[in-house]
């Protein structure tokens, strides 16, 4: 027993020493989306920012969730800034006084992917809404993010413009997971789904049963915007640091990093379009 208590005491001591003490750094919490995190964009963007900034001891902590959850997180005061892609929800966030201003950062587009055999003939669609209509009419399985993410919001909008009530679809699979997980499920089920181009490209090699079937409609334009959380609403937020990061990603240095960022096949994933 003596040995055991000695062991526990030593363990306690070791752990209390080893657990990272609170550093003197300012933690800026960036609530963003899985599409920006999992493509690896932040792996190049953050080091470039630390290089660029004149602020000392700032660290950007990225919490990657769907756009809907990112905005909810910021509304509770648990984030300092947003980098998301759902204009409607972003505007509501601003209108609610939670954010101070919104700036465009970059864009890409959504694409419809599905099995190469394409039973719905979505490949032949003349518009995005027609592609959705064809998928619905064919009775083929469709995987929905179902998580209030930016992609999910766009998908719901597309069903609406296609004039299809998705609740009536027999093979509508709402999975409530990230784009990566949704693509994987789509692949296993040889189903259709709507994906942002960046995530689809970064995973393409491992998605054996999927191919890009429809792209190019302006309705599939995917704009990313950034919003600092309003310090008047939440006095604890790091507004100055958040704005510094926003100045970087919307400025020439950050915009160049975004434009130069490529997947391992050399494809550009995001096109910078901040207004100066």
């Amino acid at each position, binding site marked *: 027993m003596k040995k055991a208590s000695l062991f526990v005491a030593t363990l306690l001591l070791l752990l209390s020493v080893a657990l990272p003490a609170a550093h003197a750094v300012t933690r800026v919490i960036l609530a963003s989306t899985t599409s920006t995190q999992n493509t690896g964009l932040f792996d190049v963007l953050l080091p470039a920012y630390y290089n660029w900034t004149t602020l000392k001891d700032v660290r950007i*902590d*990225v919490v990657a969730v769907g756009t809907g959850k990112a905005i909810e997180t910021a509304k509770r005061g648990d984030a300092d800034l947003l980098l998301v892609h759902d204009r409607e929800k972003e505007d509501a966030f601003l209108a609610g006084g939670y954010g101070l201003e919104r700036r465009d950062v970059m864009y890409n587009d959504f694409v419809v992917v599905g099995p190469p055999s394409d039973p719905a003939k979505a490949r032949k669609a003349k518009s995005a809404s027609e592609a959705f209509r064809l998928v619905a009419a064919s009775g083929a399985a469709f995987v929905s993010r179902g998580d209030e993410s930016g992609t999910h919001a766009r998908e719901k909008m597309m069903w609406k413009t296609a004039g299809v009530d998705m609740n009536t679809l027999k093979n509508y699979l709402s999975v409530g997971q990230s784009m990566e997980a949704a693509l994987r499920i789509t692949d296993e089920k040889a189903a259709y789904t709507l994906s942002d181009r960046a995530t689809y490209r970064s995973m393409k090699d491992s998605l054996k049963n999927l191919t890009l079937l429809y792209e190019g409609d302006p309705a599939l334009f995917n704009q990313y915007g950034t919003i600092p959380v309003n310090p008047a609403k939440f006095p604890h937020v790091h507004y100055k640091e958040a704005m510094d990061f926003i100045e970087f990603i919307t400025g020439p240095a950050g915009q160049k990093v975004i434009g130069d960022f490529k997947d391992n096949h050399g494809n550009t994933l995001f096109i910078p379009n901040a207004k100066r």
Partner: protein
Amino acid sequence: MDTIIQGLLKALGLLLSFDRELYSIILLSVEVSGVAVVLAAALGIPLGALCALKRFPGRGVLITLLNTFMGLPPVVAGLVIYLFLSRSGPLGFMGLLYTPSAMVIAQAVIALPIVAALTWSAVASVDPAVRETAVTLGATPVLANWRIVSEARLQVISAVIAGFGRTTAEVGAVLIVGGNIAGYTRVMTTSIAMETGKGSFELAIALGVVLMLLAFAFNLILRLLQGKGGRP
């Protein structure tokens, strides 16, 4: 099958390459779960022993509650702690959300009922003759209680092992309150979940193998401790 073999090879490769990111993830996992289980043991062992040794009002309810919370889904624990630690929650002023401390709190909450309930059942099942003998030999009530608890030490250590197993294995709570922030709150289970989602199965399996090796090492150490304690 290929993926699994590739994963095992990759696990070996990663471990031997002393990949810095991997080791920082392993270290954080051990720290978070270690501190959590030490906290849970520090509170749970006395609590469980108290329930077994003393009669007090509400004792039956407390034992039932502890047994119920043994089955608390980590994701529910995570959600409740998230709502408490959020800036809009009662403890928001502490600024603990998305920190390793928040993860320790969540895991300690998950492990506490396990340690306490298993300690209770261990201590309660000690032969009453132990107390009688101790008292006959002139032990004070405190000393007699101590004899009873130390009689059950092997099972109490098992209780701690069970608590540690639960904390290292859970992903739901640490994901919610930690946020899976790279280099800061990313632990093995949240990495595995993320890599699986991304389809990096080899890395996910490799991390899984490392996690199992860690659990094995931890249990081996505690087994040795139990063995050295010997039978009275």
